[in-house]
């Protein structure tokens, strides 16, 4: 009897569980329907007020998110369209962008894209060339106001051969871009380029000026050539005073490759490191000379703080900010900690070399592109926002939040603005001048791994693991393998 009762209860429990599960499934299906309905009406807010919403995926400090945030209320006021901004730090952003686009998600209408990612994304982002050809847009957008180097490097891609660079013009020329078989994949929103922040207070100090003149027979000024750079760095290297000449970034990571390409370009080599035929171009005498100089700064002349072989952007910034070096190289404005009494920062261009009577420089630059998700249902609205937020007027407003502008006219305004000059000295002039001669990146898939292979070779050199020639050969071999793994055939057109 008891056993029968137990069996009955057990079956009853099973029946109840089954019914519960089935009803849960039914509810879930209903939930799914609602969700579909939601996505069909995406682009308006959930309160039924009819306010149009655009979703923007943006980075954090790398492209000055505060600048974008500061103008979003203006856009809502002007158009009634609210832009919902989601920001993520670099690595997370890359993974999120790739994941969203691989899943063909329509959630984000707009995404900020770093140039090395573009090789994988040209079939997932919307070319805006047609929008730009619209006579009404063409009359107002002022494409020729964009810095040509920034525009071509950031937004102009060949849809079927995304590794190719278009031939650059002195001014942005839409018809020329089209005739070369290229498309425009957004508009540049933030332009980062290596500049050389230095301690103006140390350079201006009378004792330093006199001592330098006695020692080198010339005035102490921010160095223009790498030879001058070495002298200035040696002059300021005083380990007993916890002061060194400069920072460098040969740690393992893309920053090492950024350093390397800047030096290679200044020695007359190919600053891209990989050409449009997808062949590594840095196993050359110019690179060997550049690397010899670079390695000597660290190991022979020791004008960098100890521990430099592990430095990335962060450590380099901390060392300069703590007053440990007289010079550094960075994308952004720098600040000094409160213990650096009387410290003043000014900015100069990263030095170069005189080759054939001409100063050759090639500071690394990396720019950010504001692009439209191909899978979004709000292409026109998204384009209108891109055009508005990258306009001269809006970029001028964002200067107050330290946007690195992409338009020539905004640099002119920045240099004429006494408040900005007081805050940042020559930063905007230096930034604008550096962008005009900057060198971008090769356009390959798995760029991160390729960059690390290059940086690992550099790190091996400065930590004494093998000669420059050995490391260049090994790094080149590794890069070719990585290119082949990505499906390229080095040497292809």
């Amino acid at each position, binding site marked *: 009897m008891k056993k029968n009762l137990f*069996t009955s209860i*057990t*079956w009853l*429990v*099973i029946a109840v*569980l089954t019914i519960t599960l089935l009803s849960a499934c039914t509810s879930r299906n209903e939930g799914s329907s609602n969700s579909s309905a939601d996505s069909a009406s995406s682009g308006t807010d959930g309160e039924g007020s009819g306010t149009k919403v655009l979703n923007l995926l943006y980075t954090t400090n790398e492209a000055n998110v505060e600048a974008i945030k500061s103008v979003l209320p203006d856009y809502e006021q002007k158009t009634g369209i609210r832009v919902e901004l989601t920001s993520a730090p670099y690595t997370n952003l890359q*993974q999120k962008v*790739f*994941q969203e*686009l*691989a899943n063909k998600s329509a959630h984000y209408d707009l995404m900020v894209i770093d140039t090395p990612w573009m090789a*994988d*994304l040209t079939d997932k982002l919307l070319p805006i060339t047609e929008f730009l050809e619209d006579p009404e847009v063409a009359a107002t957008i002022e494409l020729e106001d964009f810095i040509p180097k920034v525009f071509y490097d950031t937004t102009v891609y060949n849809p079927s051969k995304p590794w190719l660079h278009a031939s650059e013009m002195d001014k942005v020329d839409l018809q020329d871009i089209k005739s070369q078989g290229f498309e425009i994949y957004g508009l540049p929103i933030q332009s980062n380029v290596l500049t050389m922040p230095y301690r103006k207070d140390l350079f201006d100090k009378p004792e330093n000026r006199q001592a330098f003149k006695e020692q080198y027979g010339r005035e102490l000024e921010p160095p223009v050539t790498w030879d001058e750079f070495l002298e200035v760095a040696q002059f300021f290297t005083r380990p007993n005073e*916890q002061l060194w000449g400069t920072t460098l970034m040969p*740690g*393992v*990571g893309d920053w090492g490759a950024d350093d390397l390409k800047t030096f290679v370009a200044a020695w007359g080599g190919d600053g891209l490191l990989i050409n449009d035929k997808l062949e590594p171009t840095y196993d050359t005498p110019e690179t060997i000379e550049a690397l010899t100089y670079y390695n000597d700064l660290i190991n022979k002349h020791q004008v960098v*703080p*100890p*521990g430099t*072989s*592990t430095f990335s952007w962060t*450590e380099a910034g*901390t*060392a300069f900010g*703590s007053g*440990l070096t007289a010079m550094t190289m960075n994308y952004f404005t720098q600040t000094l900690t409160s213990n650096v009494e009387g410290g003043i920062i000014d900015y100069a261009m990263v030095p170069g070399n005189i080759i054939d009577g001409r100063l050759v420089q090639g500071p690394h630059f990396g720019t950010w592109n504001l692009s439209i998700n191909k899978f979004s249902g709000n292409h026109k609205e998204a384009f209108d926002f891109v055009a508005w937020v990258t306009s001269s007027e809006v970029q001028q407003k964002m200067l107050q939040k330290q946007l690195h502008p992409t338009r020539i006219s905004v640099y002119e305004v920045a240099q004429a603005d006494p408040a900005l000059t007081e805050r940042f000295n020559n930063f905007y002039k230096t930034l604008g001048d550096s962008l005009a001669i900057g060198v971008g990146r090769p356009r390959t*898939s*798995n760029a*991160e*791994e390729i960059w*690390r292979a290059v940086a*690992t070779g550099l*790190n*091996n050199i400065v*930590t004494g*693991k093998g000669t420059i020639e050995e490391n260049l050969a090994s790094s080149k071999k590794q890069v070719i393998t990585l290119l082949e*793994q*990505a499906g390229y055939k080095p040497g292809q057109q």
Partner: protein
Amino acid sequence: MATLSTRTHDAPIARKKKSKMNAPAIILLAPAVLLLLSVTLYPFLYLLYTSFFSQNLMNPSAKAWIGFGNYAALFKDADVIRGFTNTLVFAFGAVGIQMILGTLIALILDKDLPGMKAITIMMLIPMSITPIVGALTWKYLLTPPFGWVGYYLQKLGIIDQPIVFLGSGFSAMMSMIALDVWNWTPFVALILLAGLKSRPHDQLEAASIDGARRYQVFIYITLPFLKRFILIAVVLRLIEAFKNFTGVFGLTNGGPGNSTLLASLVVYRKALESFQIGYAAAIAFIFLILLSIITTPLIGRLQKEITND
């Protein structure tokens, strides 16, 4: 004969009864078993399945069956080989030190001395710190010229020149092991302390009455008793040390060069930076096999210890 006849007769009834009794139990257990299989067996099989394809997450349509192609490639990949070798050095080095230090700390904390409770609580602090925060803090502490470690070693006159701890392969690996030891020795000590607290006091008293020395008590009573706790700690720590990612990512990022590259970092780079999901799956699968080969005998030994008890 009658007995035999009865048995022959009863057998089908018993089987029937058994199956009748088991049916509801099986049905009730099924959801839990299915859930368990879906979160263990399915990912394992999917990992294996994926490892036979050339697959890039950014171009899912180009997925192609390549059989053992990924496996053939990974055994020729210098980064993968280095990653596995370093992982073995790191895991055995870190866990070995943790076991020795953990045992010593547990023995000290087991003493009935004033302040031991407070010390035990303080000792747990490294465990409660988020691993990435710990790794980045260590990076700053070890990096000259602003790192405190080098600064105070110089101030105390122990060294003349700042040591670049993360600047050579050997010292960077030692730093990674030191970080893991700092982070996880308290965990080992805690497990062993629990073991020490549950020691049978009658044996200790008997040894004391018989005049056993301290080291004899430790070797003949404490250590055999702690064996199963030590095994638990070793198994748990080895598994975690093999999977270590945050430490290497935050402290050395595999550098200098590739000298502290761990297998987990290789998998991360292939899967989440290059999106070569098939290749990453093959590395992860080999990694899983390696971990199983190392931990299975330990788990078997642990089960034997428990059964013998």
